[in-house]
Structure formats: C-alpha cells, structure tokens
C-alpha cells in the first residue's frame, strides 16, 4: 500500500450528497480481475457522453465538457471535496481503486459510508471527515479560485489552506499508523496467530457446530 504522509494538491468540487459507488465506478468495469486500470472510467456515466465498457477504447469517446473532472485545472486534481454520505452503496473496492488510479489521494466530506471509508484506508486514500462549515468554505474558495490547493499533513492531523484557520482532523490511531507507514495489515494480524488459534480452540469446545 502507498504510504500517506504529507500531500498538497488541487481540490476538485463535487457538489452532491450521496455520491454512490455505482457512480464512482459503474458495474460494467467490475469484471476486471485486476486492481489497476480503473482511473479512466472513474465516474464514467457522468464523464463521457457516449457509452463505455471494458472493451471500448476511452480515446474514441466524447468527454462530457460539463463534468468537473474534465475541466482544467480539476483534471489534475488530487483531492476531492463532496457533500454528505460519500461512497454509499455497494462494497466494491473498485471505487477506491478508481479514485486512486485517477490520481486522488484524499476525499473530503462531512460524512462517509462505512464500507467505503474502510476500503479507502486499505489503499492509501485518505477519507477526511470535516464539518459542514469547513466544507462550505472549500466549495466557495474553489468557486473563487479554481486551482485552489490544500495541504494535508497526516502526522500532525492538520489541513492547511489559504484564508482559513488551521484545521485539525480526526483519524483513528491504528489506521493512521498503517497509512503513515504503508503497512500490510495482514502481516500485522498474523503476528497474533497464536491468539487466533487459542480463540478457535476455546470456541470449538463451546460451539462445536461452528467448526
């Protein structure tokens, strides 16, 4: 997993609540057996005017000029800001892979759906919960100055941007540790293999029908 320490980048505005994972990566692209290559089809239904599919070359398709991520400077954005309940719906981790593959390192929203939130941390994408007032400020700042940048420092859990006081954000200690170091959490769990085996032994006596 790609570590996340500090990041500065352009913020793209997606002024919608309930951006669901079907919108982030439509179903026809879930047939892939790989983790990579989803970026060109992130937000596919909104991003292109004509039909797409795993067998269709995106270069032959007409981009929707009204879609924010097709407009410079947002086509180079690495941070996305949106409204409530970002990432709701399907558990597809492909949504996170698509955002990452597009180039996003962080998503800022007042709230996230639980599964998307979890999936993000497993892939080095930082989902950041900010209060509605801060989110409103960011939308306004981008409207005034497209190309508006934000600096995120995970170690100090701070967000710096022009015209606004330093923002402290919350992140779970364990997740922060894994993200800062790009750690594989399977290896960390396997350090407790003896405890898992002891649990299984006890449970197989108490509830033998489960084993």
């Amino acid at each position, binding site marked *: 997993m790609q570590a996340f320490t500090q990041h500065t980048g352009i913020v793209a505005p997606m002024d919608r609540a309930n951006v669901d994972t079907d919108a982030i990566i439509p179903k026809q692209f879930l047939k892939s057996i790989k983790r990579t290559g989803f970026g060109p089809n992130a937000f596919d239904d909104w991003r292109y005017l004509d039909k797409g599919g795993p067998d269709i070359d995106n270069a032959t398709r007409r981009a929707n000029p009204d879609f924010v991520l097709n407009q410079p400077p947002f086509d180079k954005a690495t941070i996305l800001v949106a409204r409530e309940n970002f990432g709701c719906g399907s558990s597809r981790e492909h949504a996170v892979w698509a955002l990452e593959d597009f180039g996003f390192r962080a998503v800022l929203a007042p709230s996230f759906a639980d599964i998307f939130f979890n999936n993000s941390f497993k892939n080095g994408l930082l989902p950041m919960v900010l209060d509605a007032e801060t989110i409103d400020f960011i939308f306004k700042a981008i409207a005034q100055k497209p190309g508006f940048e934000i600096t995120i420092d995970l170690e100090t859990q701070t967000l710096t941007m022009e015209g606004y006081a330093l923002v402290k954000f919350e992140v779970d200690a364990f997740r922060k540790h894994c993200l800062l170091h790009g750690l594989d959490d399977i290896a960390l769990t396997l350090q407790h*293999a003896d405890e898992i085996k002891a649990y299984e032994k006890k449970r197989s006596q108490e509830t033998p029908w489960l084993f």
Partner: protein
Amino acid sequence: MSAKTLYDKLWDAHVVRSEDDGTALLYIDRHLVHEVTSPQAFEGLRIAGRKPWRADSVMAVPDHNVPTTDRSAGIEDPVARLQVQTLDSNCQEFGLNEFVMSDIRQGIVHVIGPEQGATLPGMTVVCGDSHTSTHGAFGALAFGIGTSEVEHVLATQCLLQNKSKNMLVSVDGKAADGVTAKDIVLAIIGELGTAGGTGYAIEFGGEAIHALSMEGRMTVCNMAIEAGARAGMVAVDATTIDYVKGRPYAPKAKLWDQAVAEWQDLHSDAGAKFDKTIHLDAAAIRPQVTWGTSPEMVVAIDDVVPDPDQESDSVKAEGMRKALTYMDLKAGTPIKDIAVDKVFIGSCTNSRIEDLRAAAKVAAGKQVAANVKLAMVVPGSGLVKQQAEKEGLDKIFLAAGFEWREPGCSMCLAMNADRLEPGERCASTSNRNFEGRQGAGGRTHLVSPAMAAAAAIAGHFADID
C-alpha cells in the same frame, strides 16, 4: 452482569483481542465469496505466498455475472466468463467449497447461504458484498466488506473492526394485508434516510418484524445497508429455528440440540441500552414506491411525486431536483400515473420462494400490459427455481407473459446481459435506484414483488387489492 443488546453479545463472543484504541480483532465464522470482489484477494494471497486460514469456512458461488438465459453454451461475454472461470480456478487451487454455475444449488450468495444452513444464528458472516447484512435475519452479525478485507479474512480468519453503535428500529403493531417486508423496510429507510444508520448496527424488532417469515426478515435486513448500516439483525425465535432445522449445513442430532439451547440467548436483554431507538407504526405503512435516485426517496402508492420547493434543506432539495431530472418526473404526479417499460422480480432482496409466490398470486390469470416490453422473474437460486416449478409458479408467470429465468443477480446491477436501456423505466424488486444502477440512463423504482407484478399487469404503478 449488565444488560446487553444482541449486537453486543455477537460482538463480544467474537473478539479475539482488543487494541488500546478500541480496535478489535474479530473472528469470522462464515466467509461467503463471489466472483466480482474476490479475484484481487486471491491474487494477493498468491503474491504473499499465503494460504486460507480455514478453508472450510468459505462458501463460494458465481452470481453477479452469470447469464439468466440458457447456460448450456456458457457465458458469452469473454470478460465476464474469465471472471467466473477465475473464481472456479481459485476455489480449486485453494481447496474451497464452490457451487459452480451448473450446480442446482447455485444462486445469489445471500439466498444460498441461508438456504443451505451455512448461515446460522450466532455466527459472524462476511462477504465482499454490501448486502451481506441479509444474514443478520438469523440473529447473526453479518456485514459487507471490501476486497482487501476479503483477503484479510482468507489469510487470518479475522477482521480488524471498530464496534458500531447500537440502534433499535421497532416496528410496532400489525401491518395491514398486502403490506410486505419490502414496504416495511422502504418505510424505515424513508424515515431514517440513506445515512441515518451510518456507524450503527441496527436491530429490527417489534411485533411487525417478529410476525415476518425468515424470507421477510431477510428482505428487511438486506436493506439495512441502504439506510447506511453495515449490519442489520433480528433476534432468534421459533421462526428462525424452524427455518434452519434440517438444512444441509445445519448441525444435526446432539449438536443441533446443543446449538438450539445456545441460540435461546440471541436477543437483546431487557433493559439493554441502545444509542438510538426509533419506532414506526406498522398499521400506518402503505405499499411503497421509490420515485428518485436514492432509496430514501420513497412514498406510498397513493401518494404523489414530492416537490423540492417544499424541502427546507437546500442540499436535499438540490438532490431532489437532480433526481427528478434524471427520473424524468414532475413534482405532484400521482405515483399511479407513472408507466413502466420493464419489470424485474428478483435480487438478493426479493427472489426467495415467498417473494415468487406473492408475485404469482397477483399475476395469476392476468396478462402483462402491452406497453411493458419485458417482465422477468429471476429466482434467487436453482433450488428456489425448482420449488417454484414444483408449485406451478413458472406456469403462472409464463401464461401471464413474464419471462422465467435462471438464477443470479441479473438486472439488480446489470452486470450480465439483463439491463435497462437509456431512458427505460423499471418497477424492480431490487435494492438500489441509483443513477445507472440497472443500466446507464435506466430509471429504477423499487417496490415489493406483489407491487412489481401489479405494475406489470397494469402497465403503470397500481395498488394491490
């Protein structure tokens, strides 16, 4: 000892170890696997040289991509075919139990787990699919996970989790005739909102929930995720135990008696503390129809499409306007005046035998309306299909002009050939009405099986008599 909720009990019984920050390593009893969210997880195992920790905990099945028409020629789409073949070869390589496409037991993962008795009360059940909450109907802790977590469970039999808060949704009193589990859960989502359950595990209780069959409870728990809750659950009672008894993977003989004795405790204790409780009056719930692009955008059949100008929350009002444009609807239109192009009866929400019986009852002796281009019934599993055929339901549907298909996820998410064309409007018994969910540009209205059948016959939404 202090009073515990059902969720507290299930959680506590599965904690292997706890970290100082409250993160717990949670043991997983049953891991359901399908073709879409698993290939990258198996690849991860191979790259790291790891083996499944407990192969016997896994039950795998292809469901999202499988065709619902004649399967003797295999899957036509080469990309989908490769994904299903990849599941087959991964299960062979790692020694995992899989019901392949030609197996009579194949079906939607959330239908076959309970059907086989692979989902049991008191278990932790996970699957790389958000509708895993379905299995909570059995007094189990069941939730959807991403592909990285699929790999984590395969490799360690555990997941790192933070405990959710407790919510009780109590549906009090009796529901009227014709009001089904689907109507109840849509009404709950209408009340809670799509994010109202975020961060919570929801226990569904009250007289109207306990009056439901297991099929009905599965429908309710299935859609907990549409209210934002990863897990939904119902306490164990005689209905639960009667359903599980005698199923292929359920315990037998002495172990059965021991298990049943243990399961008696799978309910919230009197006085258990919930962080949030909401009450709904079952008698006030009418058959429901969604009008927008989020499951919370729902009204009763005798209602009209709501007006965004009446909404005080500006973000919400803007969402409603976008939804009306996408759905090509005008505020104030009676729901019964909305005509449909296609009808889909199926999905992990509503494809079990009881659902098909309810739809067949409405369709019996009638004809699908001329303006409906396609009305399809997709059973949840090969065994549901077999049972329905034994009862003659297939004949009823076929005589009325419905198509009778092979089991799979089908037009719920349209990964296979079953989908809406741009602009088409569908009465669907599935769980999501998001933009493009059933096909790019398609317009989905979520309803119960009986309401879907009624819409097919009338050609527009109609109340069931």
